[in-house]
């Protein structure tokens, strides 16, 4: 159990291209941090730098206030769960889990005790003699977790551990990993591209894009007040609707012609993108939506439509409201649900 600090962490591969452009983050003891972003945003690279599998180009990483920049992975006292599990195929489950302990020269009885305990927690006790190839994906995932927890490391690192599982198992393992982490109280850093995983598991999450941490905060903070257009579009499903507009001469925003015009304190003429989440829209009110496509999800109905000025809009309605394609649907937004962003910089300006 430990804190992890990243101070101005940078990474570049030789040339001018910086894949990590200065990350600052203080992770508290026992915290569950999720790094989320699209593929190629540098999230795995950042994790691998914490693990010691990638050199740190600039800045420093400290685990338990000890700078680890020049330490080998084995000296950092961390454990990692890989996307493909990385189980040793020629070893049994027991040997896989005890490998790290044997290297550390731990006594046989203590190894046995630790492995049995971990196997009990993960319910893989009856598979200890099997080879990884004789296990299902979910069981392999558990063994990979087991190999991490027997070590009782200072921190767990997860590199997209659930992306090779099918959807149902993924939900189940998501809950289990979270519970396990609560139970063990070990500081964890978890990388994923799946925003549902990010929202449900994280104590705090880092939304990364192109090597930059766009926002760091609790899931609810990130959801309620996304700090950039990128974060607003990435977090939340279905994605937030964006409408580009300009501040009119009286300081209002013209949306859907002039049908709805929230008042802002912004300079007239400024280019602004307003965002609204599909779930913050409801029937009745001033926006006139031409329904183009209706997706029935059972609990919800997703309505894809166009405003009178041609901009597309997704509205999430309760499952019992089913408009038909071709209908005109009057739509209104909840108060204060409009997010305002500067169109040029993408920075958040506030709500309206």
């Amino acid at each position, binding site marked *: 159990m430990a804190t992890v600090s990243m101070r101005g962490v940078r990474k570049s591969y030789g040339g001018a291209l910086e894949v990590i452009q200065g990350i600052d983050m203080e992770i508290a003891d026992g915290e569950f941090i999720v790094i989320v972003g699209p593929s190629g945003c540098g999230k795995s690279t950042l994790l691998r730098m914490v*693990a*010691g*599998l990638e050199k740190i180009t600039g800045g420093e990483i400290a685990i338990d206030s000890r700078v680890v920049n020049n330490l*080998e*992975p*084995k000296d950092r006292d*961390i*454990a*990692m769960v*890989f*996307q*493909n599990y*990385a*189980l*040793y*195929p*020629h070893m049994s489950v027991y040997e896989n889990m005890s*490998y*790290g302990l044997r*290297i*550390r020269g731990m006594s046989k009885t203590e190894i046995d005790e630790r492995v049995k305990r971990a196997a009990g927690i993960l319910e893989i006790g009856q598979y200890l003699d099997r*080879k990884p*190839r004789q296990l299902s994906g979910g069981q392999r995932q558990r063994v990979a977790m087991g*190999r991490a927890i027997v*070590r009782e490391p200072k921190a767990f690192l997860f590199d997209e551990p659930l992306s090779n599982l099918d959807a149902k198992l993924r939900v189940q393992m998501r809950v289990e990993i979270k519970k396990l982490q609560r139970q063990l109280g070990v500081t964890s850093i978890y990388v994923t591209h799946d925003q549902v995983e990010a929202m449900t598991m994280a104590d705090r999450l880092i939304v990364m894009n192109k090597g930059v941490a766009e926002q760091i905060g609790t899931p609810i903070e990130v959801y309620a007040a996304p700090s950039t257009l990128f974060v607003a579009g990435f977090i939340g499903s279905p994605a937030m609707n964006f409408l580009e507009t300009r501040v009119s001469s009286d300081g209002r925003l013209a949306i859907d012609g002039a049908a709805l015009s929230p008042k802002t304190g912004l300079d007239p003429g400024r280019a602004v993108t307003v965002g609204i989440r599909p779930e913050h829209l409801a029937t009745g009110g001033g926006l006139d939506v031409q329904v183009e496509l209706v997706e029935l999800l059972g609990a919800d109905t997703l309505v894809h439509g166009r405003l009178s000025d041609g901009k597309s809009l997704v509205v999430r309605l309760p499952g019992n409201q089913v408009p038909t394609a071709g209908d005109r649907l009057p739509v209104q937004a909840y108060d204060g649900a409009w997010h305002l962003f500067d169109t040029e910089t993408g920075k958040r300006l506030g709500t309206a």
Partner: protein
Amino acid sequence: MEKRVTFDEKTLPYLLVLPQIVITLVFFFWPSAQMIWQSMLLEDAFGGNTRFVWFENFAHLFQDPAYYRSAAITAVFSGAVAVLGLALSLLLAVMADRVIKGATAYKAFLVWPYAVAPAVVGVLWGFLFNPSVGIVAWALRNLFGYEFNYVLNGGQALVLVVFAAVWSQISYNFLFFLAGLQSIPRSLIEAAAIDGAGPGRRFWTIIFPLLSPTGFFLLVVNVIYAFFGTFGVVDALTKGGPAKATEILVFKVYNDGFRGQDLGGSAAQSAILMAIVILLTVVQFRFIERKVHY
């Protein structure tokens, strides 16, 4: 998932495999059968008189100390070629696997020796170690005071033949080991590193066991190579000498048959060699079926 096309036609399938069967029969079974037939014949030196003698040729062989000597030389020779060849090529493959810049060129150069014909390999090494003009032999004598004369010294001749044979085969082994190394997922190595294993331990506990199917396959291939493929090297370097010190079994087959004109005895030796290869191949397939998926 298996997709199977079935033919209702009775003759078409046979027609389709006919060319393959004909080739196999004409070029493999016919000569082999002739060889076995020949191994039971006794012929006079001028080919005028031939007699069928059942297994007399084999009986002669098994009473001949020269044959046992040749077998012992072959055992030492093929053992040395296989062990040295595998060890060196594994070392090279591990090194090449770490190279990042210019990896392709590096690998391409390492493969070159395989393209050199065995007879040329023999001539090449013969030149280097020639007692009177060879540069290596000269260096050994003048810089280290070591007299290397494979023309006179049987032990040195065997060492030289082993080196030449290994050099010629190393590229082949190297390619297989490199492919084997590159098929080991990087994350396994990384997981071991995080588990606390240093480079040496990672190699012996993770990489080496995962390479063992490749290694076993290569072991069999190398032994077969040492038995047969090295004829050209031996012929060009030592012709089995000095005093038959490098006369491996396949060379004895040639010596006895085409120089000694003992065609029957030579054919009997061939039959035994063939049996050994069949045995090795069976072992290999058995083992690989069982062991290749860990």
